[in-house]
């Protein structure tokens, strides 16, 4: 019998609330780029469900001479800033069912609870958000272009196939699917002066009932308490904004209007809006961490704009067709778009892309649920020591864990952990030196 008793500290750390509490300040990692003149490092994770065309996900050669499979064609212009990573896998994703169980732990390597339970692991982007989030107005931007499915598939909640970012093992980071609300999350500052009074009052409510609850419920209420404190801290900090020293972002405030309410019915427009928001968030230094779930692993997206409208994404993935390839390219265009935009921004002694790591991955290599080696491609990160125009092939090697990549990427962001998920070593050859 396992005891899931959690200490209060664990809970609050899980929620990223630790930064609000003075007695935990010593745990806060040194903030890279905080008061220095160098631009900060950033991370964007893009996720596509259901893998890619099995014959067209490959790369050969290096540097400007690099050749890419057709899926990766949109990244050709960026090949010298690209690392094609082959042969990684996520061990726990081999043990459960398909889809949900392959996706819910993709950024954490965690074991997923089956049946009616929901338990994954804190994803590496959220670990970063919790460690670095204090430096920016928003700890992270977690957005998606497909609604979470409510259901259970093959014994696993379908939230797993719809959610890649997790604030704690039991807390999926709320996924914003409305571009306008994502914009608000980043840039809205109209907190009422009375908000803090309200939060103080409800905090008292929660504290009062806390001791009268059972253990499991107390844990749930701790989440509430931590969340209230975090929101309070953010409001208080927003009131003191403008004290930034050293490096300044290239953009002061958004240079585009707030997107329209609702979800665009046109998928390219939807993708584009979310990509623009990620770029905008980075340029304004509103956050340095972003995860963009382009679709679910059980996606029912359709692609009429590509004249591929006879099957939904999930069913398309079961055949290697020309249409499936077109759809794959459309997804890769999104990371190419973000990368190109960032690459046009001069920043420090390079471009914004050189200070940003963009990871694009899926939870299976091909639509037939093959996840023994996963498709991963990385863009940017030159100033973090990642040289582009390369292939890293771990196939058949003993150390080929996906979480090793995350350990390395966290290093690049200035957060050094001994282990993460199932990995204890960095991804060999990714970062120079």
């Amino acid at each position, binding site marked *: 019998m396992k005891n899931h008793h959690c200490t209060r500290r664990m809970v609050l750390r899980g929620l990223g609330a630790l930064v609000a509490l003075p007695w935990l300040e010593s745990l806060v990692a040194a903030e890279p780029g905080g008061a220095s003149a160098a631009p900060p490092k950033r991370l964007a994770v893009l996720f596509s469900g259901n893998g890619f065309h099995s014959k067209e996900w490959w790369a050969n050669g290096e540097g400007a001479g690099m050749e890419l499979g057709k899926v990766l064609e949109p990244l050709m212009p960026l090949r010298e800033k690209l690392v094609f990573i082959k042969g990684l896998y996520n061990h726990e994703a081999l043990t459960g069912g398909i889809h949900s169980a392959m996706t819910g732990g993709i950024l954490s390597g965690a074991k997923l609870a089956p049946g009616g339970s929901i338990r994954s692991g804190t994803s590496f982007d959220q670990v970063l958000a919790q460690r670095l989030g204090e430096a920016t107005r928003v700890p992270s931007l977690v957005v998606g272009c497909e609604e979470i499915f409510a259901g259970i598939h093959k014994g696993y909640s379908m939230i797993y196939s719809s959610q890649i970012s997790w604030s704690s093992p039991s807390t999926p980071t709320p996924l914003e699917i409305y571009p306008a609300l994502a914009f608000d999350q980043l840039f809205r500052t109209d907190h009422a002066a009375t908000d803090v*009074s309200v939060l103080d009052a409800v905090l008292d409510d929660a504290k009062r009932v806390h001791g009268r609850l059972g253990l499991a419920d107390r844990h749930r209420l701790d989440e509430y308490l931590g969340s209230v404190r975090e929101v309070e801290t953010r409001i208080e900090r927003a009131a003191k904004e403008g004290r930034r020293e050293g490096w300044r972002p290239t953009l002061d405030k958004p240079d585009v209007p707030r997107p329209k309410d609702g979800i665009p019915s046109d998928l390219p427009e939807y993708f584009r809006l979310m990509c623009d928001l990620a770029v905008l968030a980075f340029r304004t230094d509103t956050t340095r961490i972003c995860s963009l779930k382009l679709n679910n692993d059980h996606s029912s997206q359709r692609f009429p704009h590509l004249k591929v409208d*006879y099957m939904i994404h999930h*069913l398309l993935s079961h055949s290697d067709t020309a249409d499936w390839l077109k759809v794959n390219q459309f997804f890769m265009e999104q990371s190419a778009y973000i990368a190109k935009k960032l690459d046009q921004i001069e920043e420090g002694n390079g471009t914004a892309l050189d200070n940003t790591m963009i990871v694009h991955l899926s939870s299976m290599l091909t639509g037939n649920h093959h996840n023994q080696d996963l498709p991963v491609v990385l863009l940017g990160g030159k100033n973090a020591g990642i040289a582009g125009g390369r292939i890293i092939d771990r196939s058949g090697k003993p150390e080929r864990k996906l979480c090793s990549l995350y350990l390395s990427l966290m290093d690049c962001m200035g957060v050094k952990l001994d282990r993460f998920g199932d990995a204890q070593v960095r991804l060999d050859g990714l970062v120079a030196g």
Partner: protein
Amino acid sequence: MMTTVFTRLARSADAERTQGGAFRDRTGAIAATTLWFFAAVAQLAAVEPAAVDFRAGAAPLLGRHCLECHGAKPVRNDLNLARFTNQAQAQAEPLVWAKVLEQLEAKEMPPAKAATTISDGERAQLITWAKTLVETEALSRAGDPGPVKLRRLSKVEYDRTVRELTGVDLGLAKAFPADGAAGEGFTNTGEGMSMSPVLLAKYSDAAKQVARRAVLLPDGFRFSASDQSRDWTDEAIAAIRAFHARFANPAGELVVEPYIAATLRHRERLRADDKAIDDIAKAEKLNRRYLATLWKALNGPPSSWLLDDLKTTWRQAGPDGSKAITAFIDGWRNSVWKLCATGDMVGVGHFNPWQSPAPGPVLKETIRLVIKPGKEPRISVHLAAQTVGSERKATIRWERPRLETKGQETALLADLAKSDKARAAELPEQAPPPIDRSVTVSGAEFGIHPRSGQPLDPSSLASAAPGTIALEFPYAIGTPEGKPAPGERTFVVDALVEDGADPLSIIQPVVAREPAKSLRLAQPAPGLLLAGPQVVAGLNPFRELFPKAVLYAPIVPNDTTITLQLFCREDEPLVRLMLDGNERAELDRLWSHLRYISRDAESMYKSSEVWFGFTSQGGMNSREMIWAKQVIIPIREGAERFAKVLSESEPKHLESLIEVAAKAWRRPVENRERDDLIKLYRGLRQREQSHDAALRTCISRVLTSPAFLYRIEIPAAGTSPAPVDDWALASRLSYFLWAGPPDAELRTLAAAGTLHEDAVLAAQAKRMIADPRLRGLASEFGAAWLGVYGFDLRSDKSETVFPTFDAQLRASLYEETLRFIEDLFQQDRPLARSVDADWVFADERVAKHYGIPAKPAGWQRIEQASKFGRGGILALGSVLATQAGASRTSPILRGNWVVEHLLGTPLPRPPPNVPVLPETESSAGMSMREMITRHSQDPACSVCHRKIDPFGFSLEGYDAIGRLRAIGPKDPPLDLSATLPDGTRFTGIDGLRKHLLGPARERLARTFARKLLGYAIGRSIEISDRPLVEALTAQLLRDDVGVASIVLAIVSSPQFRTIRGRDVVAAAH
């Protein structure tokens, strides 16, 4: 073994009894439930173990057949059976063995390709051992309320709770992240309900949105769908208009005819018994008060001449005489009342009444008739004296008929007649006049009285009434010779009724170019009336009974000119004639709301200065100045009174706040919480916040509290389960059956502390099932059970291939699904009907989609649905379309839906490197069936696919959007046959129905039982729920027990009614 089980059972029943009498005095369905619950438990207990010990009964077999894959390092799975070394360890994790048991019984495991082959005897031995363990453990824990994690409101629950609280549908949860499904597959499970700063910020925003929509009123506050005060004012006006509409027509008039008709129709009955008036008013849907007043007036003693006239007419009228009587009344009320125009300083909107008594008949009046030059050289003018009402004799005098012409002196017609005569005499006989210049009078003579023959003023005429006088004269009369005819002339005459005739006679004088059509009128036509003084005095009783309008319908005196008052209330006749005490209070309240919301007293005072400046731009005359001063004083006083109303309403808002908090928190507000709320409010006021702002902040604080966002239940100390209190029970019920908060009745019972009583609980559950709010269960449980949750919001079909499959059709198909589920529960139908129902709910869209010729208006239940290939869940368009691709069907998806979703059969994970499918049906030159069959022949695939695909094949008669496939005469027939791995064969949807209600019936029932119970209690089914699930399953298999009874059984179960002790450390499952 038996003894042990029963001892345990008895113990647990004892515990229940002491904890709140959960098992006492059951009645009806609940009694039956309990009985079969115990029967099922006893049956389970009867299983006699062959081998109890792990080491002897299980370990050797596990080692031989299982541990190769399920050892310490499981191969492509996560089940490690090697960690069990003794019986105690095995007993600690009964869920593991329940899974093992399931796989063994279904012969899924060990797999056929395993290195060793398990013999039937070995399998039986292992099954017996596992079954004994599982069932023993299940019984020993039976009824455990289980680990229910603190539940937050799901998105749907949040919206429904806010709707119940505010009365408006705000749909705020749309901005929240989607809830994940957990437990048995539902979004109401505590397990899936985490909290985070982002979500909290969203809750805080939503709470502020609600608070912004609070509409402050003098006696509390309500909520509006809008956050604009302009809209609140409009809503207040609309509320008054809606009230008005209950009594008057859109013009504000009381429509008399139905009342008259009722008095005629029921004349005899009412004469015999005037107490029958209540019944008649009710039956005829008339206002009781007015009907009674009217009846009394029609049957009372003589009162005034006009009412007496009416009475006479009414007495003589037949049962269908209401039209004529109404015309009489309408004619009269139009002439004794007048309505004033709006604006212009003097009309409505300037403290002037809209409706006022017209003088009615007058003694004398000057009548004018404009005559324009025409082709005719001679002009006719008819002076008609029409009598009105009863036949009475009178004489009318037409004094001094004359012609007024611009630029000329007024000429009396009598003089002109005389002078023309004189002039004619002077002219030489042989010279003919150029035109006929004579004035002719027929019906009377100037200067002569028609009755007495006595002389009259020589320039005047007189005639009997009814009677008519015709005058004829040349247009150019009186114009000097040679001058052009004048442009326009006016015929003028003074008319009056002579004294001395019948004092009640009433004359309607008409001066016109045409003769009057009738000289006797039953009731006045619009226009002038002449009468003697007695008539004039006798009009008031009629006026009181028949006002022209009972209220000022526009409320807003809208006009092009500026008005001072924003809203005019004029409804004295309504209040006096039609409203009882409650209605008067209601109307007063509605008006007080409008005044309060619009703050018109304040704004009128503020703007009055500007207004006076505006209106006196051209300078006011002295009369206007006096009036202006008279107006400004009451306006100022009104503003002062309103300031007092405002400050007096503040404490009432705080009382309302506490009430809203109690409703929002779904329990009474404790004194301390009340004090805290008030303290917050006071603190905000001290920080210079207005009352309005501070109150709104307090409202948002109520809705950000964990007491609102979570379904907090306080457990008892210790580790024993105990019943939840009645407030928590009310919420458990309402969120189970309605996905919303408890209503007033549940709150009343919770406050009285009687809700937990068996009979009360059962009665409430029944009431709630019958309530339309059961929609909550239909969508949150039913749609998820069928795997079509949120179907209406998806867009996963190709618009090119299926142009008809639009958002509206989706919404209709979803509605059909929910109606079907509601009907199952509300009609308490056996579960089998969900499969073999021979009816379908359809609106026009669904009917068209399904090819049903009927064109239902709205929603209709159509019988013999099987004629159209419909009936039951298998033929629901929503289900068939969900389990299909964007443009083609997917027998695999449909088959999987039957196997996993409906029957709850777990399937192993598909193998890696499944071969891909060819693109489309046509491209490979194969049918979908052939394609899939080929795919499934791969041995790696066939393990599962031979279990899944046949079910999907049987549904291939339906296309990807759930229509019956059209089969042309040249098309090959559809192959809908299915062969299951065990050799069972069936064909098409009918065959599948028979299969589900035959061999698969128990699985179908058990899955339904599990899911409904899991939904009800918000968690996964535990081993301790097995006896209840089995008991529910047994009932679901009967054809005389409906699903509503299953709901009652769940509601009465300890799982539903109790909560684990506070100090239980949740076991991991």
